[in-house]
């Protein structure tokens, strides 16, 4: 259900290609807990078009990461259907490259060996994979750090290594789960710029899971707002801001309106989440 944009003054972005690459149809996920079954995601449907940047935003506990795990093929027990170019996902799919929220570089491999990892698995010859790894290291702005180990890098640099490693596998869809969650606000904005630059350069179809409104508005063509548990589609917002974008757009009036609009949707859900959390803590304390 797209909503009308809050009439930004900026030039509208070019219309995205309409070819659907990822289709999530009536996704339903239920977990068994000691207190009985919990519905994490209820009838969520979405499509991602080729070259599009779609974000899923919602309060903690709304099932965003569950959607990430299902689309990434890490969680296979669910209702509904998830398909890439018509092919149903039954496990990790080579067309999907995942960037995780947690620090996921291999500490025993230097930067170039980390980035070359998927190429090594694919059996690419050493000279060729090193050359390609260097290309992606350049792309994320880490030239000169090829022989450094993750322990010698900052959190933001390590996330860039993870991003370069995933991009090196040349996925059709880049799937990211709150990749900047552990970073400070300034690094987060600058890394957002980097991701935008790469996305625009490679025309990379991207699905971002986030709880950060600024991040979502800064990067996305569309934003799917999820409700608190059970996670449902509350609204899909089209972001009609000009591209190419940078973090400078954060200061624009139109940007502020989008943020306010999404916050208005999220506020109610986040309050429900907080109340639910407090209630469960009280009942847990009482029972123990």
């Amino acid at each position, binding site marked *: 259900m797209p909503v009308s944009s809050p009439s930004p003054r900026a030039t509208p972005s070019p219309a995205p290609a309409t070819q659907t690459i990822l289709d999530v149809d009536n996704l339903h996920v239920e977990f068994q807990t000691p207190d009985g079954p919990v519905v994490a995601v209820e009838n969520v449907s979405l499509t991602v078009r080729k070259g599009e940047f779609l974000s899923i935003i919602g309060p903690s506990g709304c099932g965003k990461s569950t959607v990430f795990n299902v689309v990434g*093929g890490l969680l296979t027990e669910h209702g509904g259907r998830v398909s890439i170019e018509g092919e149903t996902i039954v496990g990790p799919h080579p067309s999907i490259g*995942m960037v*995780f929220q947690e620090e996921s570089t291999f500490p025993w491999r230097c930067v170039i060996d980390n980035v070359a990892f998927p190429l090594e698995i694919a059996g690419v010859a050493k000279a060729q994979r090193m050359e390609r790894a260097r290309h992606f290291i350049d792309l994320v702005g880490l030239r000169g750090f090829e022989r450094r180990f993750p322990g010698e890098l900052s959190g933001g640099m390590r996330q860039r290594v993870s991003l370069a490693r995933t991009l090196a*596998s040349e996925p059709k869809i880049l799937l990211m789960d709150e990749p900047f969650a552990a970073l400070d606000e300034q690094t987060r904005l600058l890394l957002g710029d980097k991701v935008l630059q790469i996305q625009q350069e490679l025309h990379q179809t991207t699905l971002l899971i986030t709880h950060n409104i600024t991040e979502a508005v800064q990067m996305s063509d569309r934003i799917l707002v999820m409700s608190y548990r059970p996670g449902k589609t509350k609204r899909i917002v089209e972001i009609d801001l000009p591209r190419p974008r940078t973090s400078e757009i954060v200061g624009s009036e139109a940007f502020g309106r989008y943020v306010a609009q999404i916050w208005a949707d999220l506020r109610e859900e986040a309050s429900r989440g907080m109340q639910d959390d407090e209630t469960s803590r009280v009942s847990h304390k009482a029972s123990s």
Partner: protein
Amino acid sequence: MTRRRMNLYAGALGVGSLIVFFALMELLIQIGVLNRFVVPPPSEVLLSFERVIVEEDIAHRFLMTASECLTAGVMLTVFGILGGVLMHRFRLLQQACETWVAALASAPVVLMYPLFLVIFGRSAWTIIMIGFTAALPPVILKTLEGLSDTRKVLINVGKSFNLTPTQSFWKILLPAALPTIFVGVRLGLIFALINIVGVEFLINYGGLGQLINELAERYDLPGTYAAICFVILVSVLFFMALERIERWLRPAH
């Protein structure tokens, strides 16, 4: 301060504190606070080195203890890591055996030397097998711990790149567990060396343990302490070699 300079200062401080300790011992013994018939003065221990090396065939004994330790070390690394991997792979095996392996870790295996003598005879194999049996549990348990504690996100990265279980083991699980496995191998080597020297001492069969026994029975205390220094040397050499292997296998810590 650069890392190199820091290492230099640390090394100098370590050697310096050892020299201060020996000087203090020497002083306390010379002024009669410590009994020289219980603790020999460090200067006498130092002088006895030449005698122990020339008269007691130390090179042969040193090599014997070192080769027993090396054999036990290789065996416990191979079988210990294999045991840990199997217990990690097969949950039933882990549930069935983990408690027993942990119990074996604290058992005084050295007291079972008569049994090993019956099985292997009065040979180096009795010594090696006691060292191996006593040192195996920490390697198994630490391998299991290292593999089980591998961060889930790293395993998920492997899954996202469609790694087979074998690729996942060699490319992710094993390298991630390596530091913990090396802790186990280090502990194992300590256990093995203690038991090897102890059994050499008990069954009077060659090596540095037998030499310590003989010198102690002759009440040659400076010589006994000099022989103990050679046992420490074996330990130091093994630890240095292990550190090099670990750095080669996993350059970043």
